C-alpha cells in the first residue's frame, strides 16, 4: 500500500468516524451532565447540581428494583425460549425436508414484522380473553381462558418478544449448522458415534460460538424492549411489565424528570456495556481470522 492510498483511506473514513463520534459523545456527555442535576421539564430554569442524588434516588426507587427484575426475567426467558426452540428448529430444518426454502420463509417471517404490529396482533387477535384465538382454543378444550394481560402480563410480553426473536436465533443456528463440515460428521460416524453422541460431541461444540453470539446480540436488544410494552400494557398493571427502558421513558417523557431519567439512562448504558464488552471481544477475535 502506498502513502497516497493510505492518505486517501484516512480521508474517506473521516466523515463516518466524525459523525459517529459526535452522535455518541455529545448525547452521552449530556446524559452524564443531566444525571447530576435536579432538572424537571415542568420547572424549567430551576436546574441545580445535586451530585449523585439522582442515582441514589433511581437505584433505591422500588420501581427500579421491580423493573430490573422484570428486565432480567424478560431477557432470561426470551433467551432460553429462543435458543432452545431455535436449536431444535434449526436441527429440524437441517434434515432433508421437502420444500425447505418455503418452511424457512415461514420461520423467519416474524422477524420482519414491525414490533408495534406484532404486539397488537398478539394482544388482540390471539390473546384477547374473550374473542382471541387462544381463548377459543382453551374453551374448546374445556379450560378457562387466560386473561393474559390481566393475570400474566409479563408472560404475555415474553411470548410476543420470543416469537419475534425466534427467527433470528433459528436462522443463525441453521447457518452455523449448515457450515458444519459433512466430513466431520462422517468421521464421527466412522468412530462409532450414534446420532445422540454425534450431536453432543460434534454438533453442539460447533454451535457453542453461534449460540454465544445469539445470546449477546439478543441481550443487547432485549435489554431495551420498548415498543411491545408501549402498545400493549404501558408498563402495567402497576409495574408488572415495566422494564428499565420503559421506566426511563416514563420518567423522562411522562414525569418530565430529566435528572433521574438520565441517571437511569446511565445505569442502562453500564449494563449494556458489560454485555457489549464480551460481544466486542468475540467479534474482534473473529476479525483476526
Amino acid at each position, binding site marked *: 500500500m502506498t502513502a497516497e*492510498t493510505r492518505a*486517501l*483511506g484516512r480521508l474517506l*473514513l473521516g*466523515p*463516518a*468516524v466524525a*459523525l*459517529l463520534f459526535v*452522535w455518541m459523545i*455529545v448525547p*452521552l456527555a*449530556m*446524559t452524564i451532565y*443531566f444525571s447530576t442535576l435536579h432538572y424537571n421539564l415542568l420547572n424549567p430554569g430551576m436546574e441545580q447540581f445535586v451530585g449523585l442524588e439522582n442515582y441514589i434516588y433511581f437505584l433505591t426507587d422500588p420501581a427500579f428494583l421491580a423493573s430490573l427484575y422484570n428486565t432480567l426475567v424478560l431477557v432470561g426467558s426470551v433467551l432460553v425460549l429462543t435458543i432452545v426452540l431455535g436449536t431444535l428448529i434449526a436441527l*429440524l430444518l437441517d*434434515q*432433508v425436508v421437502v*420444500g425447505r426454502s418455503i*418452511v424457512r420463509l*415461514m*420461520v423467519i*417471517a*416474524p422477524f*420482519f*414484522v*414491525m414490533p*408495534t404490529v406484532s404486539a*397488537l*396482533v398478539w*394482544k388482540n*387477535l390471539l390473546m384477547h380473553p374473550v374473542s382471541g*384465538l387462544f381463548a*377459543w382454543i382453551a374453551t*374448546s378444550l374445556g379450560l378457562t381462558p387466560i386473561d393474559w394481560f390481566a393475570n400474566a402480563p409479563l408472560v404475555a410480553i415474553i411470548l410476543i418478544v420470543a416469537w419475534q426473536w425466534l427467527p433470528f436465533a433459528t436462522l443463525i443456528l441453521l*447457518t*452455523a449448522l449448515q457450515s458444519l463440515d459433512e466430513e466431520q460428521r462422517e468421521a464421527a460416524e466412522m468412530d462409532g458415534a450414534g446420532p445422540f453422541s454425534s450431536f453432543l460431541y460434534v454438533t453442539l461444540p460447533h454451535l457453542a*460460538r*453461534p449460540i454465544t453470539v445469539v445470546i449477546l*446480540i439478543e441481550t*443487547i436488544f432485549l435489554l*431495551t424492549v*420498548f*415498543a411491545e410494552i*408501549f402498545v400493549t400494557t404501558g408498563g402495567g398493571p402497576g409495574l408488572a411489565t415495566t422494564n428499565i*427502558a420503559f421506566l*426511563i421513558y416514563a420518567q*423522562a417523557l411522562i414525569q418530565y424528570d430529566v435528572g433521574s*431519567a*438520565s441517571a437511569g439512562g*446511565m445505569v442502562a*448504558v453500564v449494563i*449494556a*456495556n458489560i*454485555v457489549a464488552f464480551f*460481544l*466486542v471481544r468475540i*467479534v*474482534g477475535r*473473529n476479525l483476526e481470522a
Partner: protein
Amino acid sequence: MARRVSPARICVSTAAAWLVGFAIFFPILWMVLASFKTELEAFSTPPSFLFFHWTLENYATVQQRSDYLQHAFNSVVVAGGSTLIAMLIAIPAAWSMAFAPSKRTKDTLLWMLSTKMMPPVGVLVPIYLLYRTFGLLDTLGGLVLVLCLGNLPIVVWMLFTYFKEIPKDILEAARMDGATVGRELIYVLTPMAVPGIASTLLLNVILAWNEAFWTLNLSSSEAAPLTVFIASYSSPEGLFWARLSAASTLAIAPILVLGWFSQRQLVRGLTFGAVK
C-alpha cells in the same frame, strides 16, 4: 450431501418442519385473514377460519383515510432516506477499511460496533431535548437523521465484510492497468460489490422501516411513520380489529417480501460477520 436418507425419515422430518413453520407463521396468517373479515366476524367466537364473507372493505377504509397514505409515505421517506444517506457515508469508509487498512482499523471497527451497543434509552433524554430545542421533533428530517446515525455502524460493517471478500489483487490489477482510484472504484469495485451493496441497502431499509423506539418517542403525527400509526390502534377506542389487520398487513407486506429476499444477508448483517 451424498448420504442416503430413508423415505420414511424424509416424510417425518418434512411433516414436522412444515408443522413448526406453519405454527410460527400462523399469527401473521391469522392477521391477514382477519383483514378480509368484517369487524363483526373478526371478533366472533368461535372464530371463522376460511369460510367467512371475504371483503376488501377494510382495505378501502384504510386507503380512504388519507392519513394512512401520509404515514406510509413517511415510512418510505424515513427508511429510504436514512439508508441512502448512511450508504453515502459508509461506502467510502468501508472501502478505506477494507483496502487501505491501518493499524487502527480493527479498533475503529470495534468502536463503531460498540456505538451500536449503546442502548437508545441511555441517550433518549438529551436527544429529545436537543430535538425540541432545534425544532426537529415530529419532523421527517429528524427521524432520518437519528435512524441514519443509529444504523450507520451496521451499514459500515456489512459493506466492510462484503468488500473484504473482494481480493485486493483485483484492485491492484486495475491500478497496474492504469486505472486511477476513482476509475478503480467505478469500473472494478462497485460492479463487483453490487450484490453486497444491494443486500446492505435492503437490510437497512427493513431495520429502519421497523424501528419503533425513536419513531415512537420523536414523532407523533406529522412525521409519524407506520410504526407509530399502528401503535395508535392500541388505544381502547381504536379497537377495530379488521381495520387494524388491514393496516398492519399493508405495513408489513412490502418489508416481508424484501426480507425474504435478503434472508441470507440478514445473518451476516446482524451478527457483524461473527457467523457466516
